[in-house]
């Protein structure tokens, strides 16, 4: 229907009063407690200033006083919709420092859990993105499926959201006997729902009009802002840590990296970022199927560890591909059982910093969609 939407105003010719509007910290579409100070000219956004820190829980300060295993429950709470993925880089970093090889079975379970959690996270991202655009029904279809995934997590780890499942040197517990069948059933269900959502939401003309050509993030800007995950790939940059720097056992699987191609608009718009998430769900399904096939049935899930985990003196930076982008942990060890410093490079924190850059000149309703397409979780922004 409409053409290109970015409206450039020449303020030397137009005299207009601007309005400063506080979006948040309590607003239905800020996905948490984010405050955006928006300057509006009519409905057109001229400036966005994000104010964060409303959910600051001093993770890094806490981590200094915890022993290494005690930090893991805190890591769960950073990006609370992708707890499994959050734990992975941390435990990998400690394992690398200690020089532990985890058992084969553990690796496979970790990958399956991470990919399931990736699906769950992307489901929330697409669902809330639809909700921002005003479509309520797809939101609940996704949440229905997400419940099935969480049920698997609950059966394996005991918790539905904050798992504390990946431990240094292994897992907290072995998976239940029907794990493989459950996971395959979910993969089937996820594919079915995705097909339906594509018709209902993604290729809906109204949705395309709302999201295409909106919030365009060029690839060079995306890299300069160190964006990662679907935000980076939506801009057409084929970069995925699972492929480019395979960690864990991701080099054993055959999967593609979906990138934004500007099918309905320009490369790097909101629709591209969204479709990358939809397609990544399919790739995750493929990884899960391969992993289920290769996974050994027998085996221990916990490596023998000393009672007190004392990594050698030094520092390490480990990152892994989270659903939202690469999450990095910079861990400085001083040789005792407590870390000197654990710095988390929050994916959402970095991705959110690009918002003021890409939302200028669009309408206020677009700002909400751009924010939704970045897919932030305030727990990770503020930590």
């Amino acid at each position, binding site marked *: 229907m*409409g053409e290109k939407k970015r409206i450039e105003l020449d303020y030397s010719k137009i005299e207009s009063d601007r309005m400063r509007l506080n979006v948040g910290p309590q607003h239905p579409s800020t996905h948490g407690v984010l405050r955006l100070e928006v300057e509006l000219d009519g409905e057109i956004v001229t400036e966005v200033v994000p104010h964060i820190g409303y959910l600051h829980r001093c993770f890094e300060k806490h981590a200094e006083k915890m022993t290494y295993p005690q930090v893991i429950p805190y890591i769960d709470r950073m990006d609370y919709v992708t707890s499994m993925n959050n734990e992975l880089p941390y435990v990998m970093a400690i394992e690398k420092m200690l020089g532990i090889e985890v058992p084969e079975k553990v690796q496979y379970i970790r990958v399956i859990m991470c990919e399931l959690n990736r699906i769950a996270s992307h489901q929330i991202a697409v669902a809330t993105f639809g909700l921002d*655009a005003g479509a309520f*029904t797809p939101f609940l279809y996704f949440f229905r499926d997400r419940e099935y995934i969480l049920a698997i997590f609950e059966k394996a780890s005991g918790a539905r959201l904050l798992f504390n499942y990946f431990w240094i040197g292994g897992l907290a517990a072995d998976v239940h006997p029907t794990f493989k069948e459950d996971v395959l059933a979910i993969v089937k269900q996820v594919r079915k729902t995705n097909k339906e959502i594509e018709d209902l939401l993604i290729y809906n003309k*109204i949705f395309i009009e709302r999201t295409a050509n909106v919030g365009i993030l060029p690839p060079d800007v995306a890299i300069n802002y160190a964006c990662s995950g679907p935000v980076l790939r939506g801009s057409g940059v084929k970069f995925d840590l699972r492929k480019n720097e395979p960690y864990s056992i991701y080099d054993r699987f055959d999967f593609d990296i979906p990138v934004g191609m500007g099918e309905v608009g320009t490369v790097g718009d909101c629709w591209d970022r969204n479709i990358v998430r939809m397609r990544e769900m399919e790739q995750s399904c493929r990884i899960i199927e391969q992993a289920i096939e290769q996974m050994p049935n027998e085996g221990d899930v916990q490596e023998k560890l000393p009672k007190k985990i004392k990594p050698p003196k030094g520092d390490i930076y480990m990152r892994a591909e989270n659903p939202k982008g690469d999450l990095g942990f910079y861990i400085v060890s001083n040789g005792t059982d407590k870390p000197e410093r654990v710095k988390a490079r929050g994916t959402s924190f970095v991705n959110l910093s690009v918002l003021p850059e890409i939302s200028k000149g669009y*309408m*206020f*309703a677009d700002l909400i969609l751009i924010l939704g397409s970045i897919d932030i979780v305030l727990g990770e922004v503020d930590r």
Partner: protein
Amino acid sequence: METTNFVYNLIPNETIAIIVISVIPLIFLIVYALLAILGELKISAWIQERLGPMRTGPWGILQPIAEVVKLIQKEDLTPDSANKPLFNLAPYIIFMGAYASFAVIPFSRYFVPSGINIGLFYIFAVGSIAVIGIVMGGWASNNKYSLLGAMRSVAQIISYEIPGAMAILSVAVLASSLDLEKINIAQEGGIWNWFIFGGQGSWSKIWVFPFTLVLSLIYLVASLAETNRTPFDIPEGESELVAGYHTEYSGMKFAMFFFAEYANMFVVAAVLTITFFGGWNSPFGNFMQGPGWDVFWFISKAFFFVILQIWLRWTLPRLRVDQLMYVGWKVLLPFSFICFLFISLFKMIN
């Protein structure tokens, strides 16, 4: 005063008769609004594979009553910095606009509250009152979100009245009248005589069908915009404007907005029924035709369109404000002009 209104003829005292006649639509409106709220809750729930309200009464059918009771009990807040007279007046003005439309809606050939001969014109006139209430409420709230919502609403309703009016005008052309009763009578004799198929006349009227179909769709879309329903609910725009023009309202005043929205939904559904879908007429010719059946057919047809509106709401995302203008001015308006032109030509040739 000559009238076909049976209540008027039943009661000898004129004043009492008028009061009774005006109260009947109000009672109907309240009952309908409760049903529509229940319908909205249940249909949205079933579409989303939920059960919906289940606790109040069997299958939760008393839920709307519980909600009304809750809203009455709630504290009626008025913001400190609001313009109080306007703030308090706005919801009632909106409701009045919706309620006034019921004056001319012919429920049956024997019950038209007030049969005036420019009924269509009247409905369009009082239907626009709602926008005044919305602007009043939005501006008086002294809230930036409300103001944005109110301003959007003005632009939206004014833009969409034109294609809507064009669609209705073509029916006026076909019926040669603005009187809703006459329009109804012109569609008597089964589904083939409805204006969506060109009204009464020879089979050559089938040439009109594509145009009346498009016009009825245009009116449906325009009416969605006028009642602020999804996909045109941008004045409320829950995800961006919190609740738009009624962000600051609570309690009974909020309930008034709510009622007015549902009342407006019925009005536009009724107008669509009357103009294109035969009004009180049975679709089977003389079968199931009569004063009692009139009410049944009219209300069930109108309810179908109300349900259609609800169904659309839980399917579609929301448009953006400039796209809304685009759809109104660049899609609906040209199409309605073209269709209107062809229908006028057809009428002239016949």
